[in-house]
């Protein structure tokens, strides 16, 4: 793929109480950020299971952002700390899968931080743009030899393994 025309797809999991409101604020204040992020509202960053991130990457996202309230400001007291621990565990695992660190990001953004969230989104998009497409499903696609090899086996069986009458 031509990297000049590559537009990264970023999935953003934003918490209902802070980060989603920050995105809302960015909207009402007409703060511009690049349109590459697809935002999914979750009740809390602590709701984001690592499998959500893996699924997004496996199904074609080039990067994933998890955004929540600042530490100590969680609507559910301390679930964003859980999000932080999970994120670090996930990051450690993704590294061994060969997935670049900049593709998955944890961002704290309070309801007042529309500007900061927009900056973080732009920054992440630029980093992922520099990395290029992830194209995860392409990493386990065998090349075209497979069907030919299976076909050949069927033919071979029909010839060589025929039991004489």
């Amino acid at each position, binding site marked *: 793929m031509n990297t000049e025309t590559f537009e990264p797809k970023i999935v953003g999991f934003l918490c209902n109480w802070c980060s989603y409101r920050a995105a809302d604020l960015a909207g009402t204040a007409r703060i511009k950020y690049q349109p590459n992020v697809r935002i999914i509202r979750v009740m809390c960053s602590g709701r984001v299971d690592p499998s959500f991130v*893996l699924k997004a990457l496996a199904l074609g996202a080039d990067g994933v952002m998890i955004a929540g309230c600042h530490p100590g400001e969680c609507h559910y007291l301390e679930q964003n700390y859980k999000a932080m621990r*999970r994120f670090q565990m996930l990051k*450690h695992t993704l590294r061994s899968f060969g997935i670049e660190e900049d593709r998955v990001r944890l961002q704290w953004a309070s309801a007042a931080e529309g500007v900061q969230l927009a900056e973080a989104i732009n920054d992440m998009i630029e980093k992922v743009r520099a990395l290029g497409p992830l194209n995860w499903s392409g990493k386990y696609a065998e090349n075209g030899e497979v069907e030919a090899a*299976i076909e050949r086996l069927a033919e071979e069986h029909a010839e060589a393994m025929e*039991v004489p009458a």
Partner: protein
Amino acid sequence: MSEKGKLALYWAASCGGCEIAVLGINEKILDVAAAFDIVLWPVAVDAKVRSIEKMPDKSIDLCLFNGAIRTSEQEYMARLLRQKSKVLVAFGSCAHEGCIPGLGNVTNREEIFQTAYHDTPSTVNPDGVRPQTETEVAEGTLYLPLFYDTVKTLDQCVEVEYYLPGCPPEPERIWDAIVAILENKLPPPGSVIGAETTVCDVCPRTRTEKKIKEFKRTWEIIPDPDICLLDQGLVCCGIATRSGCGALCPTVGSPCIGCYGPNEGVEDFGARMMTALASVIDSDDPEEIDRIIQEGIPDPIGTFYRFSLAHGQLRRRDLNGNGKSVEA
């Protein structure tokens, strides 16, 4: 007497342990033989693939297929047995979720061949010979199956009716499944035949609220015989693993490694383990959390995806990806 059903058992990329597990049902194997004609079972019965190819479609009542799919020959057999069988069961962890052969997905064909045919100290291969799919000899062309870069599970190749988890499945569970099939008391197609609870649920150890400052390796401590192993810092996968074994390993002081696969409703075993382990870390300081994880989980793929890499959401490692950040 009603006509006997037809049973096929096959192995693909597997160790042979599933075959032993089938024999682990002991004298009940005679009941199986009484109920079914065994039309294919490479380890025990002299049957020819050609005769299976000549059978009408859907003429095998039950096929227990163990092993992952690593070569074109295994995929061919998977398709053949799918076509000929009414009910196809992914038998054991390899067919179900890739298991140990699936860990080959941290590498690829090139690296495996390089190690096996060149690099190991015991290899003597002065001519640098490697397996080829086609070789011309005086008598004609010889063919070998194609070795895949990425190991697949059975259900990534063909449609599968049921899954029987375990590495290997416990004989009691195998017998339960056979009885369910004989009595036609099967769950809806696509189901795992087994318990819908975790290893923790049947583990006799006492659990408390978990707070871990450090994960420990098995050789570092002699665990207390009565307290939950995870409470003691050992990475025990019982929380994410389907029950079925009776918590054999944790009962004798060895942490669960997850051979029975993900519990009902868990899509990605590794993600569930990551969530569970992250929740028990007793720290809110990012640097300390990072240190606990780095030191305690040196091999995340081997720890979280030991049995399920090929069936996890990512399926394999990216050999070209370096896992580093842009600035680094």
